[in-house]
């Protein structure tokens, strides 16, 4: 599914990723854990196509195609989805208008017909019910006035609607209470599929109790330094990141 080879990335002359290698197979849920400043969020942005970063070397292959040549919208249409750590508020853009525009833009890019309004509303309502999203929220401007938990649920709603094949969850558990964590995790688990892979970025093992990973990678100083099964997350929870802590921001 996704193969990252020797990825070297900097921002404003500050090297963040230092020859990172990572493979996520079809249907796999891979977790990335690591201390603050190890480059986890940078990795998520670079995969999704944020332009602030300078890629000095390496490749990111999605089903063999190097996505580094593609703009963020093209990557989305190719099946990459980033659930943001801090979803942005966009005043004036209605949530339903936004959802429909995204869905149809991706369908158009893939040469598919636009979804009819009744089909679209049915799809949104179905996904919203599963995520216990109040329909009133859908009438408001995107993420404006939403609580932290509501914003994260909205991210998963978008994921459910857009049906991407590679999902990056950037600290989706941050800012969630226990109930919201359960709802969001159930939303993610419902999307697990042999043709869909996940990269779950988190500091804490607790998210991985709900979204049980197939593999766990430890990231430090912009590289994957250790890889193991789900038990590795438990080890980290017990021992902490001292072994991996960088000299960078704590």
């Amino acid at each position, binding site marked *: 599914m996704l193969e990252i080879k020797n990825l070297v990335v900097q921002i404003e002359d500050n090297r963040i990723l230092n020859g990172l290698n990572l493979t996520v197979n079809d249907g796999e849920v891979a977790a990335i854990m690591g201390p603050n400043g190890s480059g986890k969020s940078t990795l998520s942005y670079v995969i999704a196509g944020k332009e602030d970063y300078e890629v000095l070397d390496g490749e990111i292959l999605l089903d063999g195609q190097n996505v580094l040549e593609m703009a963020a919208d093209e990557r989305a249409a190719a099946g990459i989805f980033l659930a943001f750590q801090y979803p*942005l508020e*966009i005043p004036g*853009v209605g949530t339903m208008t936004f959802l429909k525009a*995204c869905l149809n833009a991706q369908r158009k890019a893939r040469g598919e017909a636009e979804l009819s309004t009744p089909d679209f509303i049915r799809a949104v309502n179905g996904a919203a019910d599963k995520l216990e999203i109040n329909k009133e929220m859908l009438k408001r401007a995107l993420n404006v006035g939403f609580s932290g938990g509501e914003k994260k649920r909205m991210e998963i709603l978008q994921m459910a609607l857009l049906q991407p094949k590679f999902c990056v969850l950037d600290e989706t558990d941050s800012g969630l209470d226990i109930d919201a964590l359960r709802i969001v995790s159930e939303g993610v688990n419902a999307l697990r599929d042999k043709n869909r892979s996940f990269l779950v970025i988190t500091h804490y093992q607790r998210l991985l109790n709900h979204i049980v990973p197939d593999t766990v990678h430890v990231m430090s100083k912009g590289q994957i330094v250790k890889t193991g099964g789900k038990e590795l997350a438990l080890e980290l929870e017990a021992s902490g990141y001292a072994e991996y802590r960088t000299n960078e921001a704590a």
Partner: protein
Amino acid sequence: MAGVTNLRSPAEAGLSKLFESARQSFASETAIAREEAFRFFEATGLPSRRVEAFKYTDLRAAITEAAPPADAPSLEVAKAAVAQAKGFSGIEAARLTFVNGHLIGELSDLDAIPEGVTVVPMSEALAQGHAGLKQLAPVAQARENPVYQLNTAFLADGAVITVAAGAKPVRPLHLRFVGTGDAPFSTATRVLVQLGEGAEFSLLESHEGTDGLTCQPNDALDVVVGPKAAFRHTRLNIEGDATIALSTLSLKVEAEGQVETVNLVTGAVLSRHQIFVHIAGEDTNVVVNGAAMLRRGQLADSTLLADHAAVGGVGREQFKWIIDGDATGVFQGKIIVRQAAQKTDGKMKSDCLLLTDEGQMMNKPELEIFADDVACGHGATCGAPDDDLLFYLMARGLPRAIAESLLVQAFVGEAVEAVTHEGARAALVGEIEAWLKARV
């Protein structure tokens, strides 16, 4: 304006000649002081950048020739022009149609004016010395403005609209201004609207003409909002790309009066919309919003003066600017709170999105506060579309151009949301969408 003396420009000399030749036809009028107005104008001349209020919009440089006042067009010509008109055309409204600044009775709904509303053509009102004309020019500061005084001097047509006390017509009245022709011309219209106590009235105003048409409309709207009356006004400037469009809105608001005026500009090579508000009575509520979407060489100026002279006035002024290409936006907003106007609550804001490096935005907010128990604030922002928001939208599959359009639409939409009349709001949104579509 005092103290600035210029040699007369060819356009100013031309205007003097035009006034001389028109003087004879005004001789029998007593209702308006054209001579005084023109003398005022002659003393100031076309304002240049040396005049503070016109610092960023130099009319002396922009108007190089005095365009002659337009003759009334034939019905055939007027019909052809109106057939092309699109401003607010889908809205059910009683229409007063002006072509080249002349009221065309045959293309107006003079026989179907909403109940409680009377309309007298300005030409008739002037000839008869209509009693309502005493209410003309209801704001003192407008009378010290050369553009407004030029309108008074050359006033050719318009209407006197009276809304009876307590009348609340459902259908709006639409002032439809259309320009047509192939030679330069100027127009000077004045519409006076008086709302009686407790009246509620919606007025739509559209200004349009064909591209390449070099005309100089100078339109004025004088409004007196009676006690507890509500005036809702939606204005659309979709003038042709060679038009120099000057306009003045003068509003006098009496006790507990409510005003909502929203102006969207996408047309004209140069436009200046002047708004003078006089808060004359207590506990008023006034919303003045504006949006301009400009490209390639356009300049749009919104100049606002809100003079609070009574207790408890609430004022909300919000202006949004989209500057594309090498266009220029100008916002000058001044709030005066007189000593008597305690408890005034005023907020004025001008926000600009610059879509290119070549565009310019000039913001000049001013507060003059003489009362000590008021809440007044102003703010101005200027910047490019937010990269993080663009990335968020693109990461969901929206191509950059569409993502940018969505952000622009949302940004401008905030100024347009204030329009109460659903059809008028939809018409403005439609115009915004059309502008964005033409850009992508």
